[in-house]
């Protein structure tokens, strides 16, 4: 037994992760961060103090057993680490890449109080990537039952709910409006942050559980939620349709050619492959001087995509300051390294016409920070007489999204006054047998929260269907075959605690 680690005995510096150099990566779509090598992962795992009070677990929205999986890495039992992760998360390779760790697990890490926190996200990604490379997937023994579950939307919430219900033995069908599954993971987050192969691999794991995917199915219009429960014979339904409807500002010049939402830009590029235009037919129409309004993850993606598509000057325009920017710290940092120009405390007032219906620039106003508002962030207030023109030929809106109206238009689901689905703590909606979670309930949030919501809804759905809950940690079927002397058939889906 090694002697107890202390803050002084662990490796002091956070193990660096290889990255493409900014000058080169700013012109390609290959992944920016290259992930840990084996030795680096093991070294970083040694920095974890295995704190008895486990603050990181509480910091993680889904409560991953973080010290548990890090300990397995330390023992070089990587499959074991993967098992610990997949007790809780369906998508380690994805969450390791896109979670805002600095405000979650890493933000409360004890090591972070005196040194840089343990690189939990990088370690999670390391294990997730290894699982993909090695073809591991935690398929438990599944005893099929006669129950049928319909999932609307194939984003992280829908996939998580689908996976849990399939493990519980239900026949699960995922309906997705687009031609490819994944939700925002597919059409929103660009490949240099989250390569399509990683998304494909994680979806393939869900498919391996026996989940059927039906693409090109716009629920609400092709059939309604009510019809799913009656005519189509589904016993329960989960709605995970996301909050993808972009918001505009209703300022002058918004209809000019060259003004797009970040969703339109990213969908054209990620889902429709417009960056390969004209080899792919979908055009993009991006200019040389691009101004993106907003400073969240979506804005960072739009900025960095524009740079990679050859724009000469890419500007971030945000009415608050650097401190208030909601993007993941790593994305902001990467954007800065890549040469994005930041115009903090700048508020657009109008988009200017070049006389031919194209964008010539933006009329902006300087802001300063006043008193904190309801969100706790200091409210930006205009500086009198500070109007100025910012030259640009493309304006991208990344100021947030709203609930998609289709399910509201076509079902009797109770909605909030902003169009989100009303759901209780166990994510049951106003229709018996229909559950909902992810961005369509909370408004735009995060991948891990959506995934967690899918699992919470699955737990409630199982109770509703009279199935036993499966939230106990479990061992993969083959390894647990003799566990407690029970045959796998007898255990059904129930996860069994392995000491």
């Amino acid at each position: 037994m090694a002697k107890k680690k202390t803050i002084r005995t662990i490796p002091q510096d956070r193990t660096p992760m290889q990255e493409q150099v900014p000058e080169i990566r700013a012109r390609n779509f290959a992944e920016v961060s290259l992930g840990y090598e084996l030795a680096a992962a093991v070294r970083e795992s040694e920095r974890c103090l295995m704190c008895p009070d486990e603050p990181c677990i509480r910091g993680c929205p889904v409560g991953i057993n973080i010290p548990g999986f890090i300990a397995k890495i330390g023992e070089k039992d990587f499959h074991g680490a993967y098992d610990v992760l997949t007790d809780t998360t369906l998508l380690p390779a994805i969450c390791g890449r896109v979670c805002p760790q600095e405000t979650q697990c890493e933000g409360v890490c004890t090591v972070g109080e005196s040194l840089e926190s343990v690189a939990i996200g990088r370690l999670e990604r390391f294990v997730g990537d290894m699982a993909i490379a090695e073809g591991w997937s935690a398929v438990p023994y599944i005893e099929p039952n006669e129950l049928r579950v319909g999932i609307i939307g194939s984003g992280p919430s829908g996939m998580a709910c689908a996976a849990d219900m399939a493990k519980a033995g239900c026949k699960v069908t995922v309906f997705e409006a687009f031609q490819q599954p994944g939700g925002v993971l597919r059409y929103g987050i660009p490949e240099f942050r989250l390569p399509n192969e990683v998304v494909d691999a994680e979806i393939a794991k869900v498919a391996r559980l026996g989940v059927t995917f039906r693409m090109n199915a716009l629920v609400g219009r092709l059939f309604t939620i009510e019809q799913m429960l009656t005519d189509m014979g589904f016993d329960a339904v989960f709605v995970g349709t996301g909050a993808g409807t972009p918001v505009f500002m209703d300022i002058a010049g918004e209809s000019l050619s060259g003004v797009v939402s970040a969703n339109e830009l990213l969908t054209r590029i990620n889902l429709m492959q417009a960056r390969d235009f004209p080899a792919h037919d979908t055009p993009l129409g991006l200019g040389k001087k691009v101004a993106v309004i907003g400073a969240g993850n979506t804005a960072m993606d739009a900025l960095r995509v524009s740079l990679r598509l050859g724009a000469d000057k890419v500007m971030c325009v945000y009415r608050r300051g650097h401190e208030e920017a909601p993007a993941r710290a790593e994305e902001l940092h990467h954007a800065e390294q890549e040469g994005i120009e930041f115009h903090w405390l700048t508020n657009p007032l109008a988009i200017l016409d070049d006389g031919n219906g194209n964008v010539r620039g933006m009329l902006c106003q300087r802001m300063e920070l006043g008193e904190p508002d309801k969100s706790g962030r200091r409210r930006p207030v205009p500086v009198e007489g500070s109007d100025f023109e910012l030259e640009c030929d493309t304006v991208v809106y990344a100021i947030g999204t709203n609930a998609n109206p289709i399910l509201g238009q076509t079902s009797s689901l109770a909605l909030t006054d902003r169009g989100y689905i009303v759901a209780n703590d166990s994510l049951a909606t106003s229709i018996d047998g229909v559950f909902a979670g992810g961005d369509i309930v909370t408004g735009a949030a995060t991948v891990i929260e959506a995934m967690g919501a899918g699992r919470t809804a699955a737990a409630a759905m199982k109770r509703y269907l009279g199935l036993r809950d499966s939230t106990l940690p479990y061992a993969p079927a083959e390894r647990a075959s003799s566990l407690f002397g029970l045959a796998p058939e007898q255990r059904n889906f129930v996860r069994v605690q392995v000491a």
Partner: protein
Amino acid sequence: MVAEVVPNAVPYEIVTRTDFSDVTYLLEVLEPDMAKAAHPGQFVMVMSHAEGERIPLTIADFDRERGTITLVVQAIGKTTREMQRDLIQGAHLYAMVGPMGIPSHIEGVKKVICVGGGLGVAPVYPQARAFKEAGAYVIGVIGFRNKDLVFWEDKFESVCDEFIICSDDGSVGIKGLVTEGIKIALEKHDDVDEVIAIGPPIMMRACSQFTQPYGVHTVVSLNPIMVDGTGMCGGCRVKVDGRTRFACVDGPDFDAHKVDFDDLMARLKRFREQEKQVLDRWEQGCRIPEAPTMSTPGA
């Protein structure tokens, strides 16, 4: 990888292909679920192959018994011309999503003028039929540039109580634009509840301006550039009554007298350069002798 995940992808087979002229063709696509769900006024998004563009096309007809959706397409650019070449009977679409958009409002209308300009005849047909089935008095007004471009006149006439056909050059029916036809109808009937006009934006604007002084409620079906058709991109935004609306989920039908047509027409030109580029490139590809080309059947 993803294809493997989608073992049940519906094949969207073309069961009938008819050519109305060398630029206009009809595709009848097998999709029983959609045939059941479709209503007049709705549209689909189609991808003809995996590298293709998603393009919106109005549901021109649906047959619940045969389980089919009918589309009428005008070959104007790369995608629609490539489809004209490749989508023969027995071929498959890569993707077809729908029915999208809010169905047209049919109930409670006693007398209606259904106006179709050129290709717009196809999308307005299911509405004319639905009005007829709902017991309304239907006046059909359809217009073409000349006699050779006429299609579906019998089909359309069969659901109308009165029927007027117009042509720019007078080679068929009355000489003049569809607004001439609307004029005749409005002068004869002072109890028209609604005019519904579908066709090129310029024709819809003309109809809207024409009916405004009569104070007749007028509906147009807007056709801005769309990407997803599900309300996620905002590319299809139009200005109606001074507000930004998304045509794919808030429409495509809107009150014509409130639509900003200039805005619509300007936004339709957004990708003109790229459209030309991709078409030129495609046409060049077609001219290479080795490339497998298929002549347009029955042009």
